[in-house]
């Protein structure tokens, strides 16, 4: 008898729970049916790792509103690390006025990989009045560019670096690296577009160009660009392989177009001599007026 009573209670409970679930889902369905004017959001992710530096994910949220692409600005994106079935929240970033945002990872050890050594991240947007919720998964494997340096053989400078697995330290062969010199907005490529790593995971690229650099210094980038598995990885080298820049500015000189504290000496001297040469007699003349006034008869 007790059993049947418990069963009855259980039945009632299950009924009530089911009812509520129906209510909930219908409620959500109402949400969707009411707001068909919410726009879909696309989240683009780019992963960049700088050797001996930070790694970061550049997020861009865009949406097609009335057939035009607009930036989804000032929205929160939650960043999760997906391990097996768990989602660990890493942080929240907010898109700027251009719909862009950057999530910086101080160290790769801040996130955990899965069993295949792949890091899985999820960027999620909860949605708001205007936009539907959206999310983007991003997976990548960690790789290192090591031993990036300049070597000189027979008087010719070469840029060399090795692509290796960070865990096993094994070299990774037959991947294409690029070598560039950092410039103001973009970087200038030197050598071939594709430099494949050999069986030791190494590339050796000659640098024979004459490029100017401040004080003769150039910053080289060895880049594994937008790889399907690894994202973008960069190693930076500073080397005095450039031609020192000769500054051309006349800012420090006395010129006709300088500010007043750098007036050409000729003008300074000549003009002031003229002014004094005229005004000293003028002042003398004015004093003469006083003299006349005070003259004794």
């Amino acid at each position, binding site marked *: 008898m007790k059993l049947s009573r418990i069963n009855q209670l259980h039945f009632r409970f299950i009924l009530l729970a089911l009812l509520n679930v129906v209510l909930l889902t219908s409620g959500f369905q109402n949400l969707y049916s009411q707001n068909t004017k919410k726009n879909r959001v696309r989240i683009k992710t780019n992963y960049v790792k700088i050797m001996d530096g930070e790694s970061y994910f550049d997020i861009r949220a865009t949406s097609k509103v009335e057939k035009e692409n607009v930036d989804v600005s000032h929205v929160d994106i939650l960043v999760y690390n997906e391990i097996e079935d768990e989602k660990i929240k890493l942080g929240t970033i907010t898109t700027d006025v251009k719909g862009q945002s950057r999530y910086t990872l101080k160290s790769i050890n801040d996130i955990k990989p899965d069993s295949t050594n792949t890091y899985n991240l999820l960027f999620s947007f909860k949605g708001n009045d205007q936009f539907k919720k959206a999310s983007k998964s991003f997976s990548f494997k960690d790789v290192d560019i090591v031993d990036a340096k300049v070597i000189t053989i027979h008087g010719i400078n070469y840029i060399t670096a090795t692509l290796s697995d960070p865990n096993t330290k094994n070299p990774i062969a037959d991947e294409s690296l690029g070598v560039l010199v950092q410039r103001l907005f973009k970087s200038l490529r030197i050598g071939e577009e594709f430099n494949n790593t050999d069986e030791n995971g190494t590339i050796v690229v000659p640098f024979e160009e004459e490029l100017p650099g401040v004080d003769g210094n150039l910053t080289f980038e060895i880049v594994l660009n937008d790889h399907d598995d690894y994202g973008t990885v960069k190693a930076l080298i500073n080397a005095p392989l450039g031609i020192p820049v000769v500054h051309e500015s006349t800012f420090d000189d006395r010129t006709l177009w300088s*500010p007043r504290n750098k007036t*050409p000496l000729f003008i300074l001297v000549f003009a002031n001599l003229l*002014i004094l040469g005229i005004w000293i007699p003028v002042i003398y*003349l004015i004093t003469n007026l006083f003299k006349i*006034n005070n*003259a*004794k008869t």
Partner: protein
Amino acid sequence: MENHKTLIYDLAPRKFGKRGVIWTLFLVVIIIAGIVAYIDQLIKGQEVTNMRDYALWGIYISNFVFFVATSFVGTVTVAILRLTNNSWRTPLVRIAEIISVAAIIMAGITIMIDMARPDRLLNLFIHARLQSPITWDVVIIPTYIVISLLLLYFPLLPDFAILKKHFKKTKPKLSKWYGKLSLNWKGSVAQKTIQTKSIKIIAIMIIPVGILLQTIDAWLFSTTYRTGWDSTNFAPYFISGAFVAGIGALVTVIYVVRRVKKLEHYITDYHFDKLGKLLVLALLLYFYFNINEYLIPSFTAKKDESVHLNTLFTGSYATLFWFVTIVGLIIPIIVLLFKKGRKPYPMFFIGLIVVIGSWWKRFVIVTPTLLHPFLPIQGVPESWRHYFPSLHEWLITIATLAMALLIITILVRYLPVIPIQRTYEEQELLKTDKTIET
């Protein structure tokens, strides 16, 4: 003493008759209209003018150049004629100095009207850059104002003393003012020495300063790349133009003052004849510079120069150009070459058209150049390709001219227009030494 008394009676300032009062009121009304227009310009900005990004300088600047040029008359009559021992200048010098002072003060005021941010006037002094020709202008104009005032004032001292005595009974308050301004002038040896020395210094100094003033005014234009302005000829061209404008103004004002104050005795046909010869000399010199400026570039006919010259000879500014050249330059030369043309009455008209021609000539110098820059005028409204001053600009400009005339009027009203003491001394000298030529 009889002579002296007559002199004083003839030359002492008199109260304005009806004509004088009407004239003054007329000027005041024009000035008020100009001030109202200027306040409107301050509030709305210079969009009330017809200047735009291409015709960026208009009649405010050409009017300014005109005033600067006219102020040269002080240098010419007082200093240059003095250095060349032309004693006939005596009855004319006071009026010349008065015109000089009025013109250069108005030049200073007119240039401030062209500044779009007069609230930042002090920047011209606090942040002045010596490399800029405008800074040179900012230095030279106050300098010339001071020197012109000194040139006017020093010779006035004995006359003020005379007038103080003259008005003591009839107008005691006025007499007191004359007394203050005469700086206790007693005619003592000490005072006379100081005065003579001072006048000598001023007369010498004003020549380089006056020439410098005209030169810097020309350099405002010839330190740019613009065709029509970038000319090595510009400074002497402006100096000779100032000669013309100044003497033309002198002739006109002298005639009017002489008529109104009945000074035919003192300013005779002889004086007009001499002035006429001086004016024709100036006009011939100016004509020479005009040939260099406008005829010679058509010899090589560089494209930019040709465009500029065609605008003036046959294009949109042709009427004005030929008006100022023929009416303002050629006709006066022809008329003044004849003795009959140098009689007072014709001289008055010649003086008038020389002044009017001088004013419009500067308009022809300033704006046409701006309307054909190196790169074509595109991407702006069609009206920006032309320039004719707006009502605001006319009201303000005419008001500045009225203000100059008002200053002259007031000074003529209260100052003896012919130096009394000096005339007396010269006449005394003549009596004792008949060998001195008049």
